[in-house]
């Protein structure tokens, strides 16, 4: 393992975050605070509690997941797409490093940024609503696994995209709707039976459910199912990336 090479990519990507601090950290935090204002104050005044938890507190895990999912994808996809776009990818491909090391550098940096962002949102939420974390270990595990999995997905999108439009299509048209409909702002049990069944086809439901369980022990599906689904997505993304590097798809063809 060439740790120096991994470290070079990681440091390069983290330096980009420092240069774009407003876009990377401040903007998502402001958006989340606005969600609290709109959903917590406006809707929360009508839905006071969900299964014994105040509505404002109930939506915190969903809001963190919303930001972590979208920012993981955005960071990782842009991180690998930009060198492809500018042509500087040549030095990554000609360096004596394995695909695993390349992925570790890019995805590690993207996931780190998302975890930092999730932690900042969590801290911000603590100032606005009362918070309790029943299972801190599981909370951290879900946060880290989700950040890694969706950073891997973002990396795949960054390689697949051959233009800035494609770079935006998956996050905007697929991931954001799935997250909004995945129980960020409500419990699946609040939906009519038909929509509950439909919701179980949404993979984000399992992520938010597990994450929310680590806070309030409230879940739409069991913890094991949530963990199993994350493990499945992780394996799927890793397999796709392995295939991309094996075939050189859009990188070396």
């Amino acid at each position: 393992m060439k740790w120096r090479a991994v470290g070079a990519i990681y440091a390069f990507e983290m330096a980009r975050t420092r240069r774009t601090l407003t876009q990377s950290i401040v903007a998502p935090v402001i958006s989340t605070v606005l969600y609290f204002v709109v959903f917590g104050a406006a809707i929360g005044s009508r839905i006071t509690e969900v299964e014994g938890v105040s509505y404002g507190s109930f939506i915190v895990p969903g809001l963190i997941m919303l930001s972590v999912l979208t920012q993981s994808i955005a960071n990782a996809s842009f991180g690998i797409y930009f060198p492809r776009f500018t042509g500087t990818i040549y030095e990554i491909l000609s360096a004596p490093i394995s695909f695993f090391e390349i992925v570790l550098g890019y995805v590690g940096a993207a996931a780190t940024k998302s975890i930092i962002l999730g932690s900042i949102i969590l801290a911000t939420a603590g100032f606005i609503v009362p918070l309790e974390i029943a299972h801190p270990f599981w909370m951290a595990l879900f946060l880290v696994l989700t950040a890694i999995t969706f950073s891997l997905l973002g990396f795949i999108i960054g390689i697949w995209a051959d233009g800035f439009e494609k770079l935006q299509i998956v996050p905007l048209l697929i991931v954001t709707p799935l997250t909004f409909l995945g129980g960020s702002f409500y419990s699946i049990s609040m939906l009519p039976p038909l929509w509950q069944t439909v919701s179980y086809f949404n993979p984000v439901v399992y992520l938010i459910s597990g994450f929310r369980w680590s806070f309030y022990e409230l879940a739409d599906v069991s913890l094991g199912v949530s963990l199993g689904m994350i493990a499945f997505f992780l394996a799927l993304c890793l397999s796709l990336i392995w295939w991309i590097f094996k075939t050189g798809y859009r990188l070396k063809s």
Partner: protein
Amino acid sequence: MRSIISVNNLTKTYAGGFTALKDVSLEIRDGEIFGLLGPNGAGKTTLINIICGIVNPGDGSITVNGHDTIKDYRAARSLIGLVPQELTTDAFETVWHTVNFTRGLFGKASNPGHIEKLLKDLSLWDKKDERLMTLSGGMKRRVLIAKALSHEPQILFLDEPTAGVDVELRKDMWAVVHELRDAGVTIILTTHYIEEAEQMADRIGVINQGEIILVEEKTELMRKLGIKQLALELQGRMTKLPAALKTHKLELAEDGMTLIYTYDTRAERTGITALLNDLGKAGIKFRDIHTTQSSLEDIFVNLVKRAS
């Protein structure tokens, strides 16, 4: 001299069906400057990109210092530095950071002294804290060279390194190249400025339509394929060649003031003595004589035309 790069029966066909390389075999010798010449689209960059790991090879194999570029890619690539044809830089990075980044990418420990020397040699030291987007094209080209040399490679690929670079900068670059060669670095150079290859290269390879059509020592190539001409400047204007001189390969220049004699330097007899005798007998007087030899560019153009 031993080979440091061996390309064996390499063929590359892109997904669209275009065959960029056809059964290419090539040996690059350790410590030499090898000039790879060819018209646009001949396959030069594809060949370099495959050796460096940027493009997947098709059939065939490549070894770098005995290391297979696929099976033992880490050892092979760690020996290579590449200056690409395109000016591809991270616009927002500083010169210092981007050069250090490349060194890190190759797994080398930080060495500020080496990077400082490199930047000074390439006249980039006073620009080290400037962002790449603020640099001129020539300066960006120097940065790419600094990046390629940051990990102290044994082999350096220069793909059109002086394209768009002014004369002064070009001279600086060649000084660096000479220094590298003296330090034992093998250099593979592609260029459109064939006089550069003529001045710099030890050996020349010509590639056309994906095929290597010639590999030769530069001096041998110019001796074998070069032609020499003897120009005789006449004292008086001549309207047509006298019949007594028709047996010689003589041409009369358009202005009627110069006779041009083309001959083969490798021939047992060049025919110059007989020509001068016949000129004397015909009473033709001349005021100056000089010879010219075809350049590498002339040879290159003829080779490519013939192959096409």
